[in-house]
């Protein structure tokens, strides 16, 4: 009986910076993973079969590039990816709104233990999503690699810091690397074997 999931671990490349790195990464290393690209709009010069363009998936004429507008389509996309793939790695720049939107869509599942007062043979628990936050999705088994860079503007810096905090709370592990890193192929090759070793042994990548 074949598994419901695709056997390969997936990598979700989010935004333009990630796309630039995706293009520079060794193809044989990429083949070991199931790659998905999440981008805002299609570049006329490039076409990726595994890319999803949020702008074209929207039923409206043009999807605004802001957090509120992108929440719903991003959430739908993440649910779809999650349903069909093994837990994997998210790669993107924390300064991009699309990456921030993905991290904002993650939430920590709240485990409510019922009947705390009376000790029982078994504890009835359920995972709940807060009301009016149906776009949130559990990404607690996903890792994230942030592509850090020096950004001059105040608001971008502030948003990136918030994204780091959210990611640390809601995702399994948070790693950072320079956006101009050249050894991503090496990292991904090792990452397939062992996540922690890959981070420790690859230069320029560290846990946040």
């Amino acid at each position, binding site marked *: 009986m074949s598994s419901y999931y695709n056997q390969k671990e997936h990598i979700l490349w989010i935004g*333009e*910076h990630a796309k*630039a790195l995706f293009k520079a990464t060794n193809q044989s290393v990429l083949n070991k993973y199931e790659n998905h690209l999440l981008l*805002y*709009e299609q570049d006329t010069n490039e076409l990726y079969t595994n890319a999803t363009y949020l702008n074209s998936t929207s039923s409206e004429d043009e999807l*605004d*590039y*802001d957090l509120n507008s992108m929440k719903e389509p991003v959430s739908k996309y993440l649910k779809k990816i999650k349903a069909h793939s093994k837990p994997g790695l998210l790669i993107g720049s924390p*300064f*991009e*709104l699309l990456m921030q939107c993905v991290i904002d869509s993650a939430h920590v599942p709240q485990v409510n233990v019922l009947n705390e007062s009376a000790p029982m043979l078994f504890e009835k628990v359920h995972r709940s999503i807060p009301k009016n936050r149906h776009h949130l999705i559990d990404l607690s088994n996903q890792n994230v690699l942030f592509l850090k*860079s*020096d*950004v*001059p*503007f*105040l*608001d*971008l810096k502030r948003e990136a810091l918030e994204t780091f905090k959210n990611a640390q709370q809601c995702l399994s592990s948070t790693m950072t690397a320079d*956006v*101009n890193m050249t050894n991503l192929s090496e990292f991904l090759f090792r990452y397939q074997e062992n996540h922690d070793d890959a981070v420790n042994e690859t230069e320029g990548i560290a846990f946040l």
Partner: protein
Amino acid sequence: MNRELLLKEILHRHKRLIKSVIRQYFKDDFSDDVYQEVSISLFKKIGEEKEALLERWTTGNFVAVVVRNFCISETRKAKSKNRIQTKNFEDDDALIRAVHGSTFTDPEEMDYFHTSKKINVFEALSQLNDKDREFIMLRYFQKNSIAEINDIMGVTNSSVYIDRAVKKLKKIIGDLDDNDSYEIIDGDPE
């Protein structure tokens, strides 16, 4: 950070803001062209500006200021082009008519003006300072209204400036050619 990708991100985020500022200065027909020009201008600004200076800005404020300055400078350029065009007054009989306030019915009289007086008027205009010359050009050649000239020149009472310029012109022409007397209209050119 890759400046090109940073600009792409900023343009995506503030597309609406940029277009709304552009619409304040340009008609919708030109807004796409101006949007492209603005993108180039933003790219240059982000590239040239020192990072220490950019740290004071949020992206929204930075974009709004750059786009507004760009639009203002472009509208100024367009206005100054109009002014330069009006200064090209070779073979422009309107100059004679405007300054002398006369309409010619007799061809001989016209010829006389062309051969003898036109040179004096051009000389007189060339002796005026730039500002006075511009007021005369705007009023008597472009036939702008006083309100329009107020806007273009950034003054509130352009009629006063025009009067002064016309008086100076009269005086200069009088000095150049003492034998003839000129009557300069200083009312509505229409």
